[in-house]
């Protein structure tokens, strides 16, 4: 070793230096390169936080605070009877220059046309209003989502959390997305009520029963009779409601104020025990012809006009008026066949023995609509002929 070093000391030192630079310099270079991603992420977070401060409109600092969501389910837009739990993605407190909390931002994920619509709701702590909102992420179909214009989002600005109904007017053609935004807004209020000193205003009421009006002379104009108990003093009310669930006329009790009427209209579709989607629209007592209507697949209506015999025990004629079309991808049975194949099938079966066919695959909404109407016709007939 001594001999080696005495002979090759200089070159050993030089090459060792070179090696040391290679190793240490390489480590430093790698560190520099790895820091690029770190800085990009840090900057993305900084920019996001700044965007939330900008959303609030004032404020110096923002800080994430550790909260969890609450258990509350909402209807899935477009899927009747199915519910889901919105997801709290993040919650932030915004501070002013004196380190006082001035606003809170909740980022909530809801379901519209698709899952994963994430919206930030900024709420002012003191005035308890929604300051503004911002779409953080969205998988909504762009054509529909872009219909949510400035006018729609403007409803949310300065919206007070003290509103009883606390909902939004939807935009035509983007109803599902609008419902998602509304659900997120309502969920944000629930969170705010839990995290800060706030009580959600509530209206006390109970819908006791919803029945159809089978009076031949008034059924078309006043189709539903609703029995409600409302108010802190439990007032009893029985009233007529129209096909759009607007309050029409008091049968007994005290007529409520408009706020209650709006609440009842909002609540009836989910709390009524009968299917309110099947509606009586006309009855001609001369010809004994009843017209009933329901919403169908393409948002047009299916109307059935049925004529009864004198005893209301059988049907002398039945006509289905429909603009439904069917997707041949779903069922070869009606590939290329002109409508109203489904309608005629149901009509023929019903007229033959009074029964309903099963729903057709690929035309479920149309099938269910027709079944709904035939069921209503049976109920009317039964009411008029004493139970048959």
């Amino acid at each position, binding site marked *: 070793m001594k001999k080696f070093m005495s002979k090759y000391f200089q070159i050993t030192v030089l090459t060792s230096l070179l090696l040391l630079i290679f190793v240490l*310099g390489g480590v430093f270079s790698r560190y520099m*390169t790895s820091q690029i991603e770190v*800085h990009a992420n840090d900057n993305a977070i900084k920019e996001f936080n700044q965007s939330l401060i900008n959303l609030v409109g004032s404020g110096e600092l923002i800080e994430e605070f550790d909260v969890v969501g609450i258990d509350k389910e909402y209807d899935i837009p477009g899927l009747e009877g199915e519910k889901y739990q919105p997801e709290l993605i993040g919650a932030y407190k915004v501070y002013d220059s004196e380190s006082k909390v001035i606003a809170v931002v909740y980022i909530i994920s809801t379901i519209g046309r698709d899952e994963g619509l994430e919206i930030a709701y900024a709420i002012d702590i003191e005035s308890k209003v929604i300051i503004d909102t911002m779409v953080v992420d969205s998988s909504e179909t762009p054509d529909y989502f872009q219909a949510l214009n400035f006018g729609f989002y403007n409803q949310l600005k300065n919206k007070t959390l003290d509103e009883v109904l606390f909902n939004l007017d939807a935009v035509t053609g983007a109803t599902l997305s609008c419902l998602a935004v509304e659900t997120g807004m309502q969920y944000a209020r629930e969170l705010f009520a839990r995290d800060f000193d706030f009580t959600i205003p509530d209206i006390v009421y109970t819908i006791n029963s919803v029945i159809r009006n089978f009076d031949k002379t008034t059924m078309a104009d006043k189709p539903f009779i609703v029995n409600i108990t409302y108010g802190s003093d439990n007032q009893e009310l029985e009233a007529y409601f129209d096909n759009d669930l607007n309050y029409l006329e008091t049968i007994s009790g005290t007529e409520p104020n408009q706020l209650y009427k709006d609440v009842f209209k909002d609540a009836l579709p989910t709390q009524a025990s009968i299917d309110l989607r099947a509606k009586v629209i006309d009855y001609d007592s001369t010809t004994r012809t009843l017209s009933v209507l329901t919403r169908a697949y393409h948002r047009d209506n299916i109307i059935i006009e049925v004529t009864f015999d004198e005893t209301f025990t059988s049907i002398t004629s039945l006509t289905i008026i429909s603009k439904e079309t069917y997707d041949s991808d779903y069922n070869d049975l009606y590939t290329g066949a002109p409508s109203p194949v489904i309608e005629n099938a149901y009509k023929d079966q019903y007229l033959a023995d009074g029964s309903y066919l099963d729903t057709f695959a690929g035309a479920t909404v149309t099938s269910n609509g027709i079944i709904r109407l035939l069921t209503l016709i049976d109920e009317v007939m039964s009411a008029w002929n004493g139970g048959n």
Partner: protein
Amino acid sequence: MARFAGGKAPFLRISDTKGHNTQAIMKDFMIAMSPVILFSWYKNGIKVLIDGNINFIEMLYPLFFIAMGAILSTLMEGIFFYVTDKEHRSFQDILDKLSRSYAAIPGIILALLLPLYTPIWVLMFAAFVATIIGKMIFGGFGHNIFNPALLGYAIVGFTLMGVVNRAGGLFNASEVLVDAYAGATPLGVLASGKQLSFDLLVKPYGGLFNLFIGSYPGALGETSSLAIMIGGVYLVYKKIIKWYTPVIYVGTVFVLSWLIGLVSGEAGLWFPTYSILTGGVMFAAVFMATEPVTTPTNSLGKVFFALFLGVLTVLFRFVGNLPEGVGTSLIFLNIFTIAFDKYTAVIRTKKLAKPGGLYLAILTGLFILLAIYTVIKAGNMYSLVMPILGWVI
């Protein structure tokens, strides 16, 4: 009959007996480089730390990178001396040779030319090419044909630029956040779009003054024309370089760029100004076109060298698809340095008499032809004014 003395550059005006030698040149060179080095450290390190986009360790990296360039090229040369000279292998012998050999300069220039995020092993490879292949194999200092730093830079550019870009490229942590840059340097925008628009080429980078100061994306040492000019003035003052070489080179690039702008319909002076402030023109003018070994020694040779360098820089920028033509044109002209020296020496002695006049005509004619070709090819004159010439070219 005139007699010529021959030898290898540099030929010093200062006598060795006064204790001044190549070390004096190296010292002055380092002093001239210091504004450039300090600015590059400030722009890519200190300022980015102040912006809050890097930490303290990262702030030191530009300085570390430049120091590594110097150390690596010195080490490479030292190892070469050791391996090739068996008689003089002591540390003192090696140090003596290194002190006369400008060992650190190619490494420093390399580090200033390469992007900030160049891995150290790439710098090592470039230093090896520059020092061993570009200089030592030719016989060491004074015998090389090509500018060593440029050779190393060119080889890395051809072979390892993908590696450099994947490691992070030349945008520092503050510059990557500027949306206006859109990930491109000023010349990168020109090369990709070929549009002479102030709003595209200058405005995103803060204006012409900002280009002059050097606060725009680019290699470590090439961006600050102000710092380079300070170094250049110092070198002229110390008589290390001749003032007219950088002036003629920059002036040629300026005039040709202005003519191209005119032909393309852009008469503003902003475009030629932008052309000289970007792409390393100033850096090459002061520190590379004046390099004593690989550029002509007589004054007329220097003049023609600077003229041809200017026209080739513009030609490669506009007619070729290179984002900058400085390095390529300089390497190319290094091949003709001896020819420049030879023919301009004859011109100086023979004046217009044969064959001096002939050589002068050839050199001048060649320059003019190249200049016209560059302007026509790059501008729109070709298709509108001179259809015959356009068909020929």
